[in-house]
């Protein structure tokens, strides 16, 4: 690539967002959002519904359009790309949706779904059998899962398949949008363990959107707190959780049932 | 016949094309009115173009037809000049449009009567049976559909399912003109209770209206039943049960209001489609409305009349849909957002 990338330290990052603004009509949904998700790390994004955290995720994958600002993926500003290059870069950012029941096409086998991730044109599961088996192995599923349809899996297993699909391309950035919220707590714990076990084996950067601060603590390296469309606090998990600077962060932390500050009185 | 495809089209989850409207328009009624006005203008433009194109597309020379059988070439040329058919296409179109705006759509080739007058005489007859039919349809099918849905909810009274489905399917499968014909055979020819044709007395209204409404009663009561079943499963109905409200109160306050949007939207489309059904029904009963007018005009290749009636029926259909949207918006302001037919 060109020299302008080398001139930026951003090349180290899976994703770097600078002064991103998103407006829907008269609503200013994201205000001057700046954050970095380094390659190989998991950054948690917390906030309440309407805080803009999902909008940020959808803007990074290109579902929403940025009104202004920069989104560097692997050093390239994807908001300025057009045509073929834009389509190529799209594959560098993958998205895992919340609901495991609607994220897999009901009429396609797991093998077909995963093959499509590797090769959007051919999508032939036989050709990619080994890669599919490896991808399933990575999320602790049996290779025979490739022959089955989504309705034959539990919610947790479907979420594993969705994770396998997102990681299959080894994208620069993965957006995990509340991927444990729809699951039972024990299944959620399985997924958390899976993500923890993948540490160090994945080069992709991950933006882990969640409303559950305890889950974020277990899965992420850093945390970003959003409130009313703005980032109000960000930093390493330990320091933010131990010494929150913003009122809203404190309120959030005190709202986690079982946390030291939690009280109903 | 009722356009059940239009019905289905409006039922399926909508495309959020309109959304909450343009960002420049803040007051909901402004956006609502502008969108509806836009819709009206759009259909007017489409209808004008389509009706204009009928004449150039139609096989044969309109001037020959207008001049009558065995007219001399000179007479045909005269007629052609008189009708402006020798002018360039664009000029003809502009003349056509300006004519419409002045409510002058030419005169019938056959009777020489002004098309506007013809439409004004025939329109009330069509409106009469179409409106009467839709009012009766709503009065019958909403209670019927709701009752069947409530009786069969949660798999109750399974014995009712089949007869209801079968009977409504059967009656709906019989086209309105067949119903009309059979009604004539029974009530006019055999029993001689009611007149078979014409619009001489109030009694003459009975058979055409009945023929027009039987099919829609079946479709709408099926739709109401299906919608009621959906609403009965909603959480807020469970809430009402939790408040131990009586069945009557639950159904009247928690079920019925939530059916109105869908039912009225569909009824609007069905009323619009009635205009099509009226065409055939009017032929069966020799009812002097727009339908009979257009059939005669087509058979006689009376282009000015064809154009005029198609245009009026199209505008009426659009107006009906807009009227339903307006009623829905007044009943429930949430409908101001998008077109109700998008919902």
């Amino acid at each position, binding site marked *: 690539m060109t020299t302008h990338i080398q001139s930026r330290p951003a090349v180290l990052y899976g994703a770097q967002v600078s002064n991103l603004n998103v407006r829907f009509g008269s609503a200013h949904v994201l205000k001057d959002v700046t954050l970095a998700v380094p390659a190989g790390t998991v950054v948690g994004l917390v906030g309440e519904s309407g805080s803009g955290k999902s909008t940020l995720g959808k803007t990074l994958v290109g579902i929403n359009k940025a009104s202004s600002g920069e989104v560097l993926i692997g050093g390239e500003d994807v908001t300025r790309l057009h045509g073929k290059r834009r389509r190529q870069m799209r594959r560098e950012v993958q998205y895992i949706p919340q609901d495991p029941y609607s994220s897999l096409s009901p009429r396609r086998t797991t093998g077909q779904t995963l093959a499509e991730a590797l090769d959007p044109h051919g999508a032939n599961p036989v050709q990619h059998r080994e890669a599919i088996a490896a991808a399933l192995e990575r999320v602790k599923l049996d290779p025979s899962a490739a022959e089955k349809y989504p309705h034959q899996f539990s919610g947790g297993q479907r979420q594993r398949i969705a994770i396998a699909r997102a990681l299959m391309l080894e994208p620069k950035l993965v957006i995990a949008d509340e991927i444990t919220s729809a699951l039972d707590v024990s299944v959620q714990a399985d997924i*958390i363990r899976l993500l923890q076990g993948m540490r160090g084996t994945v080069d992709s950067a991950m933006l882990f959107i969640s409303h559950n601060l305890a889950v974020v603590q277990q899965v992420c390296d850093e945390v970003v707190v959003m409130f009313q469309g703005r980032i109000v606090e960000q930093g*390493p998990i330990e320091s933010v959780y131990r010494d929150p600077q913003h009122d809203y962060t404190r309120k959030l*932390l005190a709202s986690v049932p079982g946390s030291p500050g939690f009280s109903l009185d | 016949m009722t356009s059940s495809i*239009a019905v289905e089209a409006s039922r399926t989850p909508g495309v959020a094309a309109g959304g909450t409207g343009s960002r420049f328009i803040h007051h909901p009624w402004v956006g609502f009115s502008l969108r509806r006005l836009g819709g009206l203008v759009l259909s007017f433009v489409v209808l004008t173009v389509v009706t204009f194109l009928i004449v150039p597309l139609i096989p044969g020379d309109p001037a020959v037809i207008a001049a009558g059988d065995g007219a001399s070439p000179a007479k045909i040329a005269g007629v052609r000049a008189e009708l402006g058919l020798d002018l360039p296409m664009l000029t003809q179109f502009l003349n056509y449009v300006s004519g419409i705006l002045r409510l002058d759509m030419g005169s019938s080739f056959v009777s020489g009567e002004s098309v506007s007058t013809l439409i004004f005489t025939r329109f009330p007859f069509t409106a009469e049976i179409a409106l009467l039919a839709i009012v009766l349809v709503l009065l019958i099918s909403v209670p019927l559909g709701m009752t069947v849905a409530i009786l069969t909810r949660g798999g109750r009274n399974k014995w009712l399912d089949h007869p209801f489905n079968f009977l409504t399917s059967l009656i709906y499968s019989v*086209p309105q003109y*067949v119903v009309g014909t059979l009604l004539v055979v029974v009530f006019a020819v055999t029993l001689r209770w009611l007149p078979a044709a014409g619009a001489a007395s109030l009694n003459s209204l009975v058979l055409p209206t009945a023929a027009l409404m039987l099919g829609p009663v079946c479709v709408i009561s099926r739709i109401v039943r299906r919608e009621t079943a959906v609403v009965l499963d909603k*959480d807020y109905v469970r809430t009402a049960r939790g408040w131990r409200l009586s069945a009557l109160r639950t159904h009247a306050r928690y079920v019925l209001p939530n059916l109105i949007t869908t039912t009225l939207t569909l009824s609007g489309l069905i009323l*619009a489609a009635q205009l099509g059904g009226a065409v055939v029904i009017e032929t069966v009963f020799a009812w002097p409305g727009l339908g009979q007018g257009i059939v005669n005009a087509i058979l006689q290749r009376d282009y000015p009349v064809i154009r005029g009636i198609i245009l009026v029926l199209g505008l009426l259909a659009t107006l009906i849909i807009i009227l339903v949207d307006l009623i829905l918006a007044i009943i429930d302001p949430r409908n101001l957002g998008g077109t109700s037919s998008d919902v």
Partner: protein
Amino acid sequence: MSTGAGLLAALILIAIIAPLTMTQAAEQLTANAALGPSPEHWLGTDDFGRDLLSRALVATRLTLLMTAGAAAISVVAGVAIGLAIWLAGRRVREVALRVLETAVAYPSLIFALVIAAVLEPGVSSAVIAIGIAGIPGFARITANLASSVSSSEYVVTARLLGVSPVRIAARHMLPNMAEPLLILSATVFALSLVEISALSFIGLGVQSPQYDFGRLLNDSLGALYTQPVEAVGPSVMIALTGLSVMLIGDALAAQADPRAKRSFFRRSLQRDRTAGVPAGDTALVRAENLRISIPGGPQLVKNISLSIDPGEVVALVGESGSGKSLTAMAIAGLPSEDLAVEADMLRVGEMNMLASPDQSRLAKDISIVYQDPGTTFNPSLRMGSQLTEVLRTHLGMGGAKARQVIIDALANVNITQPAQRLRQHPHELSGGMRQRAMIAASIVTSPKLIVADEPTTALDVTVQTDVLRQFRRIHREQGTAMLFISHDLAVVEALCDTILVMKSGEIVERLTSAQLAARDVHHPYTKALLAAIPTLEPAPAPATAGAPTP
């Protein structure tokens, strides 16, 4: 399905055979003109001495072929245009949808008349006219279906993977749209039949000497007074053909609709509305060997027993499928209608919940707070009208008084401008506000028991704390007993006196809040559940970027 399919098969058979064997009887001019029904001519003969039954049967072939042709045009072109609209850019799509909307509003029969007027009347022009007239409707349906399928997450994900729109349409959308499209195709067929026959009937379709059902009906119209039976053949044939297709469509739709598969079970209710409370039994709620099952199917709640003392807050904790909500709703007297509920005893106060207790008493004594505040209120009624329901219906309060009581209750749960909220519709309030309003309404009757089914699950964490505080405050101020359903042990630990852990329809462990706080739990499932619940770790995390181990 079988009735419709059988009927259609019979009609197709007629369409094949009748023209081969009956053409002569149907078309040969004979001297037996205008005969009534007789053993030789079941439906009589027409003015030219042709057998009317034969004519009706022979006409089946032409009618079916024309209808199939027209329906095929509508469906194929409709699907193609609908998908194309979806594949096109946003601008094109919006304009195209507006045009379709206008076209759909236009009565398709009149549209067909216009086309028929342009073309010379005849078989092919009738097919083309009806086929084209049906396109906008089907295109709109396809576009609507496509838009709902395309907003599903698997299509969004496929798009992010770089799958081209055409492939998305072929691989993901068409297979998932096939079923509804097939059902609607049946409707299109029925509609085409009616309209093609209508064209022939008014003289713009099939022309003599050819004949279809519509043409035959038209012929009969002239002889209606002299020979009314002439109308019977074509009428019956049109009705049967339409009916067969409609029944097939109905059956397909029923197969796709899970509602149709429900079976109703009439729960046998005990006659005695009051339950005998043994002396010394001070419990407010007592359930003994409660069993809930799908009639003829698996048991979902297996012999559980529990009691709630006045003023006690009991939690039922478990994961999805544990039967906790079923149990709670059975206790509240609102079990799902297709379930069988049995017990040795199930009472709330003196009310026998296995019978049908007095409704007003139930409404006053038991209040229920549901999970999703977004769907628990009727969207078409104002908040005030709904929140005052119980006060007006069961406590006989006047409207003004009931409103005042609710306004005070709303103020108590920290809802600002309560009087104004009552004039709003549910969608104008936030989720947290709706849930607080539900809680406010649940206490105005001073109930003995509040059943709360996952009341905070759908809320943001900060709002959850606020709502939990309201429950705590109510309990403290009014001493109301509560049955609190949750999947989160950490939530119930802070609120409840007694915690019952449920798994697969059974209570596996009973804990006091003190035991839970001390992690004094014994059953492996409870331990697993406790371990699974993510809690904040106050412990210092490792200084390196490495992962904190769980």
